[in-house]
């Protein structure tokens, strides 16, 4: 098991819970007898304790355990809380933050002393707090941890401001294109070097600025927590949410356009996937349902998986639909893969025609969801297991990520293939006896004239599984191009709504100089005979 991955998740989650804990403590400080706030405080501490226990971070879980005891006492109203008790919890929250940053270990004698004093404080009954010494005076040592927490390392700026900066840098770059002409004696080598250096720095600045448009996918998933809670409440259900793999970054504009489709999926999971509490407990499941949002990146794609632990999709209803509405027989259906079978739900007429079946809820609007993901150049697929749950997988081009690609031209078109797929680049002499028919030539297909040449540049593509385009039994595809521009870093943007119909492209690449190139999806290359 890769423990560092879980430690990272723990650090991120704890940071979030501790921030929320501080907010709640600030609220309860003004309303000490608010039992609901104490219940929430209890919940936050409990969550940190649970995660720390799972990772055997005993110092953290022990302190949380004692803090939890106090919060529970206040939550029940058996003992009234006091400003001193709240201060003690604030101090512990600061110290927990320090412990999380040190992965639960205490390095100095001073810190150990402080830890022991906090533990002994919480071991007492909270009502005793005011009787001992002067607890309103905050422990001096905790200031250390608090001051480090106040360091400003993040600032909030408007997205439109980033757009403005990007626009300005691009305009400065454009100025370079209209550079005034100098005579030879005016343009000294020193001046030329200075201009080149300036232009290079501008390009780097622009590239860095584009990365400001990236957003942490985990933060994006966080935006849904409240919506999920509200939807669950509407359906009279209770749902726990788990977010896995929050460190991946993607373009804000892409994520923004995913918001609606994702809400739709959550609505489906809660309304039709997750069973009512009673049904769940009867089948041995926890009363609360669970929705997991998992993100990961693979090659130039971003995968977002939304999983529920509900009742799953009844296959027999899909089969019934295929037989009745699509006139398919058992043999046809038997040939379909699991994925194809479940993806039937995404077909446009499924929802309306299945209205009377128990599956109807799953279909409503799912074709619209699939369509909007399709517009972003992505795809949606479904898998399910009866009684265990359903998983929706959204696959998207990892927009605005920087990838390396071999940029080349064919006729008037500027195209690119990710360097990852290019094993080598070679040159063939067509005037010799070499058999040109064993090479893949896309020219005619894209409407360019295929004039005979004496020599060709060839990209030899590896990891090639596209059966349609394969020639003979060759493991590599020898892809003919007119000229090679080079191996370039590209900022990848999704193809827009109009271009999404051209399945040949996986994205649009922007080169450092602002030139545009079309990224070919090698899995979608057509057969040579097309």
């Amino acid at each position: 098991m890769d423990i560092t991955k879980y430690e990272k998740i723990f650090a991120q989650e704890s940071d979030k819970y501790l921030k929320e804990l501080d907010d709640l403590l600030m609220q309860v400080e003004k309303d000490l007898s608010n039992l609901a706030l104490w219940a929430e405080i209890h919940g936050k501490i409990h969550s940190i304790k649970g995660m720390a226990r799972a990772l055997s971070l005993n110092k953290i879980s022990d302190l949380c355990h004692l803090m939890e005891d106090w919060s529970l006492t206040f939550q029940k109203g058996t003992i009234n809380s006091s400003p001193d008790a709240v201060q003690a919890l604030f101090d512990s929250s600061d110290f927990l933050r320090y412990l999380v940053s040190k992965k639960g270990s205490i390095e100095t004698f001073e810190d150990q002393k402080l830890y022991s004093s906090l533990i002994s404080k919480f071991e007492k009954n909270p009502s005793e707090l005011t009787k001992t010494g002067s607890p309103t005076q905050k422990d001096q040592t905790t200031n250390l941890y608090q001051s480090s927490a106040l360091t400003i390392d993040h600032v909030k700026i408007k997205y439109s401001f980033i757009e403005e900066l990007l626009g300005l840098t691009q305009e400065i770059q454009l100025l370079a294109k209209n550079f005034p002409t100098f005579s030879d004696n005016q343009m000294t080598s020193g001046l030329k070097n200075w201009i080149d250096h300036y232009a290079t720095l501008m390009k780097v600045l622009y590239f860095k600025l584009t990365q400001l448009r990236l957003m942490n996918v985990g933060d994006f998933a966080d935006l849904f927590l409240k919506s999920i809670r509200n939807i669950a409440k509407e359906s009279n259900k209770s749902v726990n949410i788990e977010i896995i793999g929050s460190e991946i970054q993607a373009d804000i504009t892409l994520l923004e356009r995913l918001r609606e489709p994702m809400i739709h999926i959550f609505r489906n999971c809660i309304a039709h996937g997750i069973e009512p509490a009673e049904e769940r407990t009867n089948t041995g499941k926890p009363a609360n349902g669970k929705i997991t949002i998992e993100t990961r990146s693979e090659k130039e794609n971003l995968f977002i998986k939304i999983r529920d632990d509900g009742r799953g999709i009844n296959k027999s209803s899909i089969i019934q639909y295929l037989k009745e509405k699509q006139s398919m027989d058992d043999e046809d259906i038997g040939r379909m893969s699991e994925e194809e079978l479940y993806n039937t739900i995404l077909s446009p007429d499924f929802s309306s025609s299945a209205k009377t079946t128990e599956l109807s809820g799953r279909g409503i609007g799912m074709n619209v969801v699939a369509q909007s993901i399709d517009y972003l150049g992505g795809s949606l697929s479904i898998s399910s297991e009866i009684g265990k749950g359903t998983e929706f997988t959204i696959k998207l081009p990892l927009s605005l990520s920087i990838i390396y690609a071999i940029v080349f031209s064919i006729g008037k078109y500027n195209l690119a293939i990710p360097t990852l797929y290019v094993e080598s680049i070679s040159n063939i002499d067509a005037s010799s006896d070499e058999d040109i028919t064993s090479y893949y030539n896309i020219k005619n297909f894209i409407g360019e004239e295929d004039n005979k040449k004496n020599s060709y540049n060839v990209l030899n593509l590896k990891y090639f599984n596209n059966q349609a385009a394969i020639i003979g039994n060759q493991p590599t595809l020898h892809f003919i191009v007119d000229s090679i521009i080079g191996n370039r870093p590209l900022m990848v943007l999704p193809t827009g709504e109009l271009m999404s119909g051209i399945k040949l492209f996986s994205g649009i690449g922007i080169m450092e100089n602002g030139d545009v190139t079309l990224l070919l999806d090698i899995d979608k290359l057509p057969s040579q005979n097309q």
Partner: protein
Amino acid sequence: MKLFVFKSKDKYIGIESEYIYRIIDDYKVTPVCLTPKCYAGLIFYRGELFDVINIKLLLGSSEYSESAYDELIQNQRIIIVKWHNKKLAVIPDEIIGMIWIDGDFEGLSIYHHEDKNINLITPDYIWKKLLELSYGYH
């Protein structure tokens, strides 16, 4: 209400000016294969990608044999249109300018101005026409 007017072949076309984002010229258009004739290509302007459409070819594509990319001229002026969540770059034959009209032109299809018949269109109309066309291969 302000109307932005441009010429496409012998027709005057007007779009509500609030949708006009920028007018740019001398901008490199990257051609895209497997697109309809009216689709000139893509431009990357101020951090955003725009589909570039030749309006003349979109509204009367059957009359022309050349593709929009091949029609491009030097210092071509391009109108960038942004509306709702959509965006588009449009190539006109000639930019006429802005005119002020009284009231609303909702429901109107032609507006008469100084001996000119201006065909009023919305960006949504252009978009709808574009979606009717075929992209890619089958």
